[in-house]
């Protein structure tokens, strides 16, 4: 079930340049939310008619809270960064990661602003985890994620860790695992999916697409997915955002 809540803002602070962490009180959403799902944030300003999808970073169901981490990239996110009191949100949206508790060794991969949902994911994984993070410069949440396993880091400009993208980093480390969970830019996920296929590891990828309703009603957020020798358009907001990488048709 989805809810709209007027969430009190407990925290809305800049944790890195242009990146904010916000903690929201939304007991109904928090109670049912799971890793890999997202919430829709309403601006309430006429200029931004559509809600903004933001992944859930952490869930605290007991205290009825969720945390999100967002980057100010445009009008909506800039507006959120100014808020102090409350915010109208809808959630939780999407399918989330499907976490197999019997798996002994998982590989978790995040790129740029796709890293935040991996925190709640890692909290829920039972076995060993190896984590690979990449970004243009230093990736966010390195310390937080090292609570859950060994973290390997890359940056495009070489300013932190391995110089190159995160898939090149993975190619050099050659991790072993039974499953990959990932979130990041589409190009990264496409390259990761090739690596996963070559190494015969199943990969779950969390995709982004432009959205209007966020709940599966408008068919605005299509992604091409294989179907019985043909293909179909599925909805990122409802059928996703998490898909199996070998089902996605990457070349558009």
């Amino acid at each position, binding site marked *: 079930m989805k809810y709209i809540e007027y969430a009190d803002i407990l925290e809305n602070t800049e944790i890195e340049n242009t990146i904010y962490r916000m903690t929201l009180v939304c007991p109904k959403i928090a109670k049912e939310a799971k890793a890999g799902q997202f919430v829709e944030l309403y601006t309430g300003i006429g200029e931004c008619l559509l809600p903004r999808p933001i992944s859930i970073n952490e869930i605290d169901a007991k205290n009825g809270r969720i945390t999100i981490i967002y980057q100010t990239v445009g009008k909506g996110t800039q507006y959120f960064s100014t808020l102090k009191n409350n915010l109208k949100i809808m959630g939780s949206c999407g399918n989330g990661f499907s976490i197999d508790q019997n798996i002994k060794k998982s590989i978790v991969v995040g790129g740029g602003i796709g890293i935040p949902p991996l925190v709640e994911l890692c909290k829920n994984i039972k076995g060993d985890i190896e984590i690979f993070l990449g970004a243009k410069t230093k990736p966010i949440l390195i310390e937080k994620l090292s609570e859950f396993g060994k973290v390997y880091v890359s940056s495009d400009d070489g300013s932190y860790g391995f110089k190159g993208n995160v898939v090149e980093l993975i190619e050099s480390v050659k991790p072993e695992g039974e499953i990959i969970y990932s979130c990041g830019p589409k190009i990264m996920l496409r390259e990761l999916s090739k690596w996963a296929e070559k190494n015969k590891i199943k990969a779950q990828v969390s995709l982004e697409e432009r959205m209007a309703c966020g709940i599966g*009603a408008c068919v605005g*957020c299509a992604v091409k997915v294989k179907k019985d020798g043909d293909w179909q358009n599925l909805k990122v907001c409802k059928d996703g955002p998490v898909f199996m990488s070998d089902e996605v048709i990457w070349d558009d």
Partner: protein
Amino acid sequence: MINTSVDICGIKFKNPVTTASGTFGSGREFADFVDLNRLGAITVKGVASRPWKGNNSPRIAEVYGGMLNSVGLQNPGAEYFIKNDIPFLKQFDTKIIVNICGHSIEEYCEAAEMLSEADVDLFELNISCPNVSQGGITFGTEPKMAEKVVSSVKKYSKKPLIVKLTPNVTDITEIARAAVSGGADGISLINTLLGMKIDIKKRKSVLANKVGGFSGPAIKPVAVRMVYQVANAVNVPIIGMGGILNYEDALEFIMAGASAVAVGTANFNNPYATVDIIDGIENFMLENNIKDINDIRGIIG
């Protein structure tokens, strides 16, 4: 007691508020927020005789005062719709309007024939679709073509037929008259205005399809004007839409001559929009001593 019920082509709606096709799915997705029993009618997303895959992504772009969409009428086809969506909708005490699309007159007729056997109340014919055999020109922009598609579908349709007009024409009354002489029992308008948005950093159109339908509050003045013109040109019930966000907007359409109104893009901005508007209309009637909603229809003259 006030009366909010309206008669649309012989079908009684408990209130004049329905949903705009394509913005409300088949109601299911909004049922967490909206008591569907409260709606005058539910207009479902466009259905074709066979499944359509739709356009490539991105399909959505936000623009000042609204949005663009180029969904390309993706839909799972009439058979799937009849099996999966109608049983769901029949649980609710509301009327069902099925929006029909097609690439050719044959496809429209086929869909109307298939859906005529289904337990629904009204058809809404979306003539804003491209006519594939005529190089993709929109059916609804040519009076002769509009009349032909309406009169053809009418033969296969066992439900009252509302024809939904595109605003991308020079004279909307000409198309409205053509639709009525083709046999339209009602008219709905407006569909989206053709628009475009360019990403100046990437130097390309935001939508993969380059152009898309413009909807939302910015189009409302155009829509109200067109409803007003059509109401004065033809003698069939009108469902007005285009940029309705609140009850004030809805009342503008009714005063311009619409018997009912449809809420579209507003559902994305506020999932409760439809019920908020129904409540708002009732309050307005009570406060202004309006006994019957039909008394203010077309009141501006």
